[in-house]
């Protein structure tokens, strides 16, 4: 049995410990917001945060996150009727097309902003190039990250939340 904290809730999981976290989230925990795209750490659709760091859940055995804090797209917003600043800017900039890659994009972007509240273009390239969007919404993603970062600069509470959330 593996014990993992997912979106703040402790979960006891009965699977072969080599099973990738992605399938545990989707099949055991019914958290289907995290997507399967390639299975080999190439596309980023399966990105979650482990202790605030973006990870590809398709190649992370569930045993490797035992005792750790996992955050998925379902746990990104601060509360049931609230949005994370990035989710809001994703809507404001009309980022998603098909939307399939966007959970992964948001989890990578949130990990970036938690580390770096005003990322440069190079920072964005570095943090986001592991996430493929076959619908090609890269300019919108870039713009949405920058505008969410702007929000954070003017709203210290949002920064506090992000640090609190992602550090545990």
């Amino acid at each position: 049995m593996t014990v993992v904290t997912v979106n703040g809730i402790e979960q006891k999981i009965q699977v072969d410990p080599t099973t990738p976290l992605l399938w545990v989230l989707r099949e055991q925990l019914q958290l289907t917001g995290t997507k399967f795209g390639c299975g080999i750490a190439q596309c980023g659709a399966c990105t979650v945060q482990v202790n605030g760091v973006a990870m590809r859940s398709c190649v992370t055995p569930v045993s490797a996150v035992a005792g750790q804090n996992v955050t998925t797209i379902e746990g990104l917003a601060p509360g049931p009727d609230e949005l994370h600043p990035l989710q809001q800017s994703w809507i404001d900039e009309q980022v998603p097309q098909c939307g399939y890659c966007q959970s992964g994009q948001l989890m990578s972007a949130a990990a970036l902003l938690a580390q770096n509240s005003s990322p440069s273009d190079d920072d964005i390239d570095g943090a986001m190039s592991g996430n493929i969007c076959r619908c090609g919404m890269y300019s919108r993603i870039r713009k949405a990250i920058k505008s969410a970062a702007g929000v954070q600069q003017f709203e210290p509470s949002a920064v506090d939340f992000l640090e609190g959330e992602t550090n545990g």
Partner: protein
Amino acid sequence: MGKWTRRGFITAGIIAGGGLIVGVAIRPGNRATKLSKHVTGDGETLLHTWVKLDNSNVVTAIVPHSEMGQGVGTALAQMLAEELDADWSLVEFEEAPAISEFANYPMGKGMLFAGLDIPDFVVPTVDGVLIRTAQALDLQITGGSASVRATGAYGMRVAGAAVKEMLRIAAAEAWQVPVDQVIARDSQMIHEATGRSEPYSAFAAAAAEMSPPASPVLKTSDEFKIMGRDVQRHDLPPKVDGTAIFALDIRVPNMVYATVRRAPSFAGGVENIDDTVTRSMNGVVDIVKLPPADVSALLGSFSSAESVAVVAEGYWQAKQGMNALRIQWRATENDRVSSDSIFEQFDRDISAAIDFKSDASEGNVAASIADAAQVIEADYRVPYLAHTCMEPLNATAVVKEGFCEIWIGCQSPLSFRQAVADSLGFDVENVTLNNCFMGGGFGRKSRPDYAIQAAQLAAKIGRPVQLIWSREEDVRQDFYRPAVQSRFRAAIDQEGNLTAWENTYAGKMEPAAAPLVPYTVAAKKIGHVPSPTHVPLGAWRSVDHSQHGFFTESFIDEVATAAGQDPYEYRAARLKHLPRQLAVLKKAATEAQWGVPLAPGRGRGIALQECFGSIVAEVVEVTVNEGDLSVDRVVAVIDAGYAVSPDGMRAQIESGIIYGLSAALYGEITIEDGAVAQSNFHDYPSVRMSKAPAIETYIINSGEAMGGAGEPGTPPIAPALANAVFNATGQRIRELPLQNSALNV
């Protein structure tokens, strides 16, 4: 023509001027049980296929298209709301269920008659023919960029206007006032003289008893209040919090998971399977051989080979089980085929020109070539391409007591439903298909092979099955954009004028116009020769335009260079007869500061292509620094007649550009020993954030017939890029992808 009955049901209604309305007006308890189950709420009235009005005055557009990501629903709902004079906050949309009553007749009409002004007296005939054609094809497909231009223009707007007329008449009767004094505004009927005002929904029941007007009057563009405005897409909130349900997210009690594999060289089934290891693995439920399947779609018929499935309690277990299988595939003659042998065959077939079929012929090409000051010749090639939709193919099926229910993301729900029924030997009425949000389609999800596999597995196993293809299977068992070779010869006179254009290529799908050039030329001869291979082909975003745009727009650049002229000026001088094309080209050149010199190592390229009723020009700016290529900027201009959702159109153009850029830089499926050599994103890469150029999109509303937006952004990007590379380096790119050139991409 259908008729209204006392029960308010209409089988088919045709409205002169282009609209065709089916399944109009139905209320709970209606005899047409198949439709009535879609009128769920008490007090809801389904006014007709496209419109549902509930008693809280919310209008729902029922959209007969699949949401692949284009925001189709929003643009169509805008068109309906505009003509209906509805309050936008009271407008919603849902996708039409996969039953024949919702077949997309207007789309068939748009594809067949796009841009034609059909005289009123012929309309009933055209509609009559189309009803039958569409019924025969069970046409409910998303593709050909047809959503807005066909369904919207021919269906939604007419429907909205018709419904408004009916509601106005109903209001006039209820209030006993002349109908021309009743005003429709923001989902309210208003009679100013008496100060009366009631919501549309108050008149829905009375309107449902009425015949639709013969020819509702549509607004002109200066009257638009909702069309042409940026509105927020309805489908985005669930796409940012993980709650949007794609087919992969369906969960059915007692469900098992499966994954499949087919013969790598496409034909030839299983010779032998050693499944000893797999059967002993934890969680493995069964190993199943699935028969070959007919997976014909609109673009050519095809039968896919036998496959092997591993069914397990979880996907991971199924995948591990598959990896442990020892499958021996039957050898076939395909096994000797390679990309090299395929291109040698194309080359031979083009040279031999046996069975040459003409696409266009004008003037005397041989004479122009004989008289030429200069003859320019070149051969171009593009490879096979896979679609790699972000969401790998998957479907969930339940088969029980002669019924099948399936959840899937697909571009052609009605034909998928038929294919599933056929494969199970069921009546189509006993198959329910639920189309979910689709994680990309791009043409791949119009072939029903994955639906058939899921249904057959569920029937065999006796439990609900979610079939998930691995990415490797997705790359290796696609219906590919064809590999094509295209041979050109052009003649110019002393002044550089284009006097002959000759083009022969191997392989053709559609649309027929894809290889035609818009430029004035005295003589031309364009055509193709057959050169079939065993590789399965399918529609790939923009279909034949994706390759021919690259060929013709690169070669015209070569001609301009040979004539010693600027490639933009050279094109513009030959477009005087096509003012829309000229305006688009000019706007692109202006916005991109064409003619303003660039630093050494930098270059600009331009390209123009009309497809699916829209005209798009793109200018690409590149930097080549010690052999490293970077794509810095793309300026795109589109004239799609009229942009219903301008921001939605810009998003689609951005998307089409990145999709085409991925193909131009990296996209290549090669054949070795009859099979696809690539397998996943590491060897079939996509453009990523760090390589994505800045894109500026400009829209021209010419007011001409509406064109599509999902596909036309793709064709110009490869030639504009290749022309920019030439401008920067003097190196002409005649083969894609650029990854195979001397440049580092």
